[in-house]
């Protein structure tokens, strides 16, 4: 096709970026969120290589991202925005209106789902929302396909003048594969782009069979490998959906935008008609399953054959296919029989569990310790970020959605106050989340004098998603300088009367300040009070502050009370049962000194 085709191993998110850049993208805006965060850096990288003129930015939240991209698309540009699945909720108001607007340019909304969920508060299926509201949605099954689909989606949007959604999942976004790089504008298009032909890709012929499987996204890829492992290739055809089929009967409340007659689902219907039974494997909701207008024929979530929550792993898919094959008397030539000997042999072996923990040396750990020490019986509304892990230190009680620390603290305050009680409320939120979602809630709390203490854990970056710059840094997505917005100026502007900025590693000062804040609120009948605990993320700036304290000689003086483990949950500390003492992993310890303050016995010297 073209002389200069090269390949490069990349993750799915870079492949999406590549496809968009090749399709002529002109503007991209996103808020970082796992598993979508690497698309903007990918766009910036490929734009640099192509010496292009794409504007790419981090927005303060997903709604801003979608509106900026929609603005550009309305004005004739090819635009895209990116977010994780729960971010799409934040962008919901503009999405619902934008879907019915005829675009002069093009708009692809990339929404990355998180089956499991692995790194989100809820599972959520972008395809469900898109299908419900008649927005075309594409669902690639691999990194390689993701680049083709991203390319096709932007072209499709430009041709049809409507916004479209590209949904990925973490398994596609973070898988790695060799992807072909073309010059802009010449990538061979997928069959589905030809909208008069099938909008879905049949994997095998339509020979009538006892069982046919319909799958989309990574679930399709797993099904294919499972079918091949079990030796069912010639018996069970698999149908891959790349672009979700159209809704036939009208869903109550649904109005298609009227601008586009969606594609016919002829091939899809034909496949279904040719099979005695259909198994639908999809993540994470029942969308294709609900669209198949023949309930009795279908195996899926609704009749309990597919688990209704959680990731559809290789093992789960293999189990489902085997079970249904057995039901239908389809001969599985290479049946999987789990060997009980493996689990049996592991029973006597001890190895450390490794649940998610704040990093050794994380300043959030010191903040949570101080909060808990100041008011052990407080109510602790938490928020979304690394610091949700403060739950293991007993200093996070809630995790609802972005910004809910402030609004839930308000609700708790009124609840307690209404009942004539007084319980301290210590809320916590990170800096990026503060800018993303806390400003209207905070303004509301100030206006109504809600009495709670808010600790803003300002580590100078969006740590959990990979160190994207926050509005305070004045650094743009491509590393250039822009305007800087400081949170203390906003807080002062709102008229918050009690504001302190401190270093969380000065733990006794932080404990005293939290007590002072609570006393101020009670005395003045006024709130909220705010403490900014400011300390750069250890991973972001590790050279700058490791080794503040001499390594503590726990092994000698430890009395085995485990207080430090309970209060800090630090990954560098282990309890050695035989010795009945704490041991420190020197490779992980950052010498932050927090444990020495949590320990009532051992006091190290501060380094000169």
């Amino acid at each position, binding site marked *: 096709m073209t002389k200069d085709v090269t*390949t490069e*191993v990349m993750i799915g998110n870079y492949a999406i970026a590549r496809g968009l850049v090749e399709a002529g993208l002109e503007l991209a805006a996103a808020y970082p969120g796992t598993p979508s965060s690497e698309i903007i850096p990918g766009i910036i990288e490929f734009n640099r290589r192509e010496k292009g003129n794409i504007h790419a930015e981090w927005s303060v939240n997903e709604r801003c991202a979608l509106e900026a991209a929609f603005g550009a698309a309305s004005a004739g540009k090819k635009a895209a925005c990116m977010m994780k699945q729960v971010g799409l909720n934040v962008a919901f108001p503009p999405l619902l209106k934008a879907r019915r607007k005829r675009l002069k340019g093009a708009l692809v909304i990339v929404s990355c789902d998180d089956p499991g969920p*692995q*790194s989100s508060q809820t599972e959520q299926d972008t395809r469900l929302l898109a299908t419900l509201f008649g927005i075309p949605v594409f669902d690639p*099954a*691999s990194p390689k396909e993701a680049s083709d689909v991203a390319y096709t989606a932007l072209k499709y949007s430009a041709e049809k003048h409507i916004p479209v959604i590209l949904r990925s999942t973490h*398994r596609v976004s*973070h*898988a*790695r*594969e*060799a992807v072909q790089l073309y010059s802009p504008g010449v990538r061979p298009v997928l069959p589905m782009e030809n909208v008069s032909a099938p909008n879905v890709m049949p994997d095998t012929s339509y020979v009538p069979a006892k069982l046919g499987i319909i799958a989309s996204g*990574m679930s*399709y*890829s*797993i099904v*294919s*490998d*499972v079918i*091949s*492992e079990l030796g069912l290739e010639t018996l069970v055809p698999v149908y891959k959906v790349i672009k979700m089929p159209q809704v036939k009967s009208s869903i109550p409340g649904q109005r298609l935008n009227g601008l586009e007659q969606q594609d016919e689902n002829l091939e899809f219907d034909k496949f279904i008609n040719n099979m005695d039974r259909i198994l639908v494997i999809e993540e994470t909701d029942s969308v294709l399953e609900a669209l198949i207008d023949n309930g009795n024929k279908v195996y899926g979530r609704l009749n309990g054959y597919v688990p209704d929550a959680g990731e559809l*792993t*290789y*093992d789960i898919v*293999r189990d489902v296919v085997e079970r249904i094959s057995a039901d239908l008397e389809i001969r599985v030539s290479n049946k*999987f029989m*789990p*060997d009980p*000997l*493996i*689990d*049996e*042999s*592991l*029973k*006597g*072996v001890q*190895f*450390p569990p*490794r649940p*998610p*923990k*704040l*990093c*050794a040396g994380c300043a959030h750990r010191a903040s949570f310790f101080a909060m808990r020490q100041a008011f052990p019986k407080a109510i602790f509304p938490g928020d979304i970020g*690394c610091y949700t*892990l403060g739950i293991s230190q007993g200093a996070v009680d809630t995790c609802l959605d972005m910004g809910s620390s402030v609004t839930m603290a308000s609700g708790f305050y009124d609840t307690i106050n209404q009942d004539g009680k007084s319980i301290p409320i210590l809320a916590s939120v990170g800096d990026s989340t503060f800018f993303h979602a806390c400003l209207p809630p905070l303004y509301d709390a100030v206006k109504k004098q809600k009495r709670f203490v808010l600790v803003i854990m300002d580590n100078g970056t969006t*740590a*959990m998603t*990979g160190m994207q710059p926050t509005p305070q840094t004045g650094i743009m997505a491509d590393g250039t300088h822009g305007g800087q917005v400081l949170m203390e100026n906003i807080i002062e502007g709102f008229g918050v009367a009690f504001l302190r900025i401190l270093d969380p590693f000065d733990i006794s000062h932080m404990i005293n300040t939290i007590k002072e804040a609570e006393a101020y609120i009670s005395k003045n009948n006024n709130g909220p009070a705010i403490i900014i605990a400011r300390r750069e993320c250890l*991973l972001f700036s590790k050279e700058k502050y490791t080794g503040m304290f001499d390594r503590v000689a726990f092994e000698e003086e430890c009395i085995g009370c485990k207080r430090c483990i309970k209060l800090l949950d630090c*990954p*560098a500390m282990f309890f050695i049962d035989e010795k009945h003492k704490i041991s420190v*992993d020197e490779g*992980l310890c950052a010498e932050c000194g927090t444990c020495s303050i949590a320990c009532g016995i051992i006091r190290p010297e501060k380094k000169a």
Partner: protein
Amino acid sequence: MKLEIVCAGVGGRGVLLASTILIETAISNGHHALAADEYGMSQRGGSVVSLVKIGDFKSPLIGKENADILLAFEESEFYRNLGFLKKGGLAIVNTREDVLPAEIDNMLSTRNISYLPVKADNVAAEKNMLQASNMALLGFFSYLAVEPYNAQTIRQTIRERTRGKFLEKNLEVFDLGYAIAQDGNIRKP
């Protein structure tokens, strides 16, 4: 040809670099390959698993008892992930222990799994490259010459993937890992 490899270790110990070298070596030798990484929330010292599948596969995910090879960069992660290994598979494990617990040893021999321990931390320390135990393990693995991997093909990718002063040091650790397998007269599977 089909090959399924599980790389397991803890964050910050080079598991992802090792799996990157494996997938790129396979691709530059003309194979289709896919990789999937599993790592939790940003955390140093957390479990990291990286799956590499080479050949005619569509998904990068590996089912229980399907992996041909388990490369464990940390002993605890060997136990956590040994359920991936198929009968007749191969485990190369960075460990300081000379003997396995008896139950594990029995299970591995019943399942005909080759277990090859390597003191990769010591190998890396010998070259003053504490963080490079992954290279020692890869060097050891390369001696077994499991298609498409051998010392030459993996070395070539390391050359492309590592830059500056660490390149030569990494290769020294790699070569030492290879030499240990060679001296130990490790049986090729």
